[in-house]
């Protein structure tokens, strides 16, 4: 049995509300709240970046864990806000975690699905016997151009998953990927903020790819929407994942527990995985979980998992971490970017 043996997450304490951003730009907060379904978003402080957040989440994953750090044979970090253009985040993270030097390290980049692609590689790595454990972090300190619609959603967070074959809490059943050349969102080298093609990011991008990956997964596994207790879709906002769920034949009840985007915003590479952390807080052994990420450019990775008894010992409470928060003004927010 392969799957996720342990996990950790990190959300910075700072929050900026949709209302505060809207007020700054002279917009109607209520209309933006209704159209995006985001109340506030988490944002990393001045001394935080995708590396520090990945580290925090990895420490949570390894702390009190039965995993021997020296048996981690690979470290993959997925992000679209790696601190360096050239210089791997994965090696700095490996060094900070004191896992020795006998490990493979690389960074991945694929907009918001950089980490789920790395998880598939990690699963293959473990299955092939190359490593006992692989540590995968999805982490982002995402930003939007001042005044752009992304300002309301682009947030900060990190999730780390340890992939292995011993005492897995989430058994991997199967996965599918669906990819195409669809330029809906991009950031060129040397440019600080991403660009996007407005409404084109919806139907031909997010929905088309998530539908492609999920339908293919359902066909491959011969499972039906009702066979899953809960589902998690990438959360660019609070509206898209619900729409996608309903159109695929799932119910609102199956997706609602994952919708951390309302309180955290879209943490890009960590977004869908953060939804998984929220779902694991209430999952019981035997339940099936479906997760589908989405990365602009574009692609979606869909996974079918089964919760095992080990969740009972390894469960972590995201809700508790989220209680720790401090709302900041728009001016302070800009200083943190």
């Amino acid at each position, binding site marked *: 049995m392969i799957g996720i043996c342990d996990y950790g997450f990190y959300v910075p304490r700072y929050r900026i509300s949709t209302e505060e951003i809207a007020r700054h730009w002279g917009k109607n907060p209520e209309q933006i709240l209704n159209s995006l379904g985001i109340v506030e978003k988490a944002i990393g402080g001045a001394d935080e970046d995708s590396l520090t957040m990945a580290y925090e989440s990895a420490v949570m994953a390894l702390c009190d864990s039965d995993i021997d750090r020296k048996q981690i044979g690979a470290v993959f970090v997925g992000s679209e806000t790696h601190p360096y253009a050239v210089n791997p985040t994965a090696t700095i993270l490996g060094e900070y975690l004191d896992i020795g030097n006998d490990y493979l390290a690389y960074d991945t980049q694929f907009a918001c699905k950089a980490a789920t692609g790395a998880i598939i590689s990690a699963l293959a790595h473990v299955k092939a016997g190359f490593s006992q454990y692989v540590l995968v972090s999805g982490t982002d300190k995402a930003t939007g151009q001042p005044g752009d619609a992304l300002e309301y959603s682009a947030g900060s967070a990190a999730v780390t998953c340890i992939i292995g074959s011993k005492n897995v809490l989430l058994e991997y059943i199967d996965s599918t990927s669906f990819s195409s050349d669809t330029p809906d969102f991009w950031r060129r080298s040397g440019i600080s903020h991403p660009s996007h*093609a*407005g*409404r084109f990011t919806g139907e031909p991008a997010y929905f088309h790819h998530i539908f492609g990956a999920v339908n293919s997964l359902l066909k491959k596994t011969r499972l039906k929407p009702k066979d899953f207790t809960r589902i998690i879709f990438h959360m660019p906002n609070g509206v898209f994942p619900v729409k996608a769920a309903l159109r695929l034949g799932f119910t609102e009840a199956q997706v609602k527990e994952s919708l951390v985007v309302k309180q955290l915003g879209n943490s890009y590479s960590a977004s869908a995985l953060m939804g998984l952390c929220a779902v694991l807080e209430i999952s019981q052994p035997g339940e099936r979980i479906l997760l589908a990420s989405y990365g602009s450019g574009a692609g979606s990775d869909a996974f079918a998992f089964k919760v095992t008894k080990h969740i009972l010992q390894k469960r972590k409470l995201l809700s508790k971490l989220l209680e720790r928060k401090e709302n900041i003004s728009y001016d302070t927010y800009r200083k943190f970017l």
Partner: protein
Amino acid sequence: MTTIIGHHTTKFGELWQHSLFDLVKQSVFGALKDSGLGKDEVEAIFFGNMLGGVLENNLHGGAKLAEMLGLNIPIFRVESACASGGVAFNLGMNYITSSQAKTVLVVGAEKMTDYAADAVISGLSSATSGEEQEAGLTFPGLYAMLARYYLEKYSYTEKHLAYVSVKNHYHGLLNDNAHFQKKITVADVLASPYVADPLKVLDSSPISDGASALIITTDKSLIKKAKRAVSVLASEVATDSISLSARKNLDELLATRIAAEKAFREAKITPKDISIAEVHDCFSIAELLAMEDLGFWKKGTAGKHMETMSTMHGNGSDFIVNSSGGLKAAGHPVGATGIKQIGEVYLQLTEQAGKRQIHKPRYGLAHNVGGSGGTAVVTILGN
């Protein structure tokens, strides 16, 4: 008399899977099919398009059409901002009158949704005066100034503007090709965010993709053979100062008034004879001004008239305005709009307008505006 014998309008909206010339092709071959003509029977083409050069670096559209159709006939690209389609039609009409040609195809098309909104707004703003661009005015800003002046002068409120969008969205619901298929209320319009006070999102036409084509001819044998034919009684173009600051009156678009007066004189009918009109509602205020400038309603009374919704399909009136959904709901791919408007009148007069068909219309009018009234085209069709 010059007669329309074929028409095709594509779906309007966010057509991401189609390029500008995919849409041109669809509408051209659709119109040829509708008319029963082969492409070799077309003697010249007029192609209305505004933004191909600005957004796509694509200006030699005539030669692209020649390649697409395998023809070597005269093809002219026509640009006159949002009146590109209407002006292309007018030039096609004049070409027939002044040359040996008897049969001309007129096509208008625009591809707008592949580009970032700020690039499209900047491109559209190239149709405003340089001085007003420098002052920071965009089209919403210019029309907002006209709206403010009109509401103030005639003691109307934003609610009087909202009725235009409510009516046109209802019509859009009856038109499968419309960009928006959604009914809205006055409250929805009033609650939508401001674009340029007093104009809101739901007072404004959208950025759309689409194309529309018409075939016009004076060839008697083709007219006789045609399944459906409608005569063009008048097509008139008038211009006015591009800058609002150089206009005498801000409660009218003078170019519309001049073009309409000439067109009615030419067609030998009066506004009362019109049963169906497609008017240029790029913003809600534009429909109020158009209804007065075209001579349908007295100056200053459009707000009151709109409140009765008498020009809405199904309200028992024999005069319906913007049955296609107008620019507001059918969408506004700028180069296509002027052709689509004439096409809608053609559909109504030939009783092909489906769910939005009005009862036995005899005369119809199409009104296409470029910029904030720098150009206006008025076309009158009749059975």
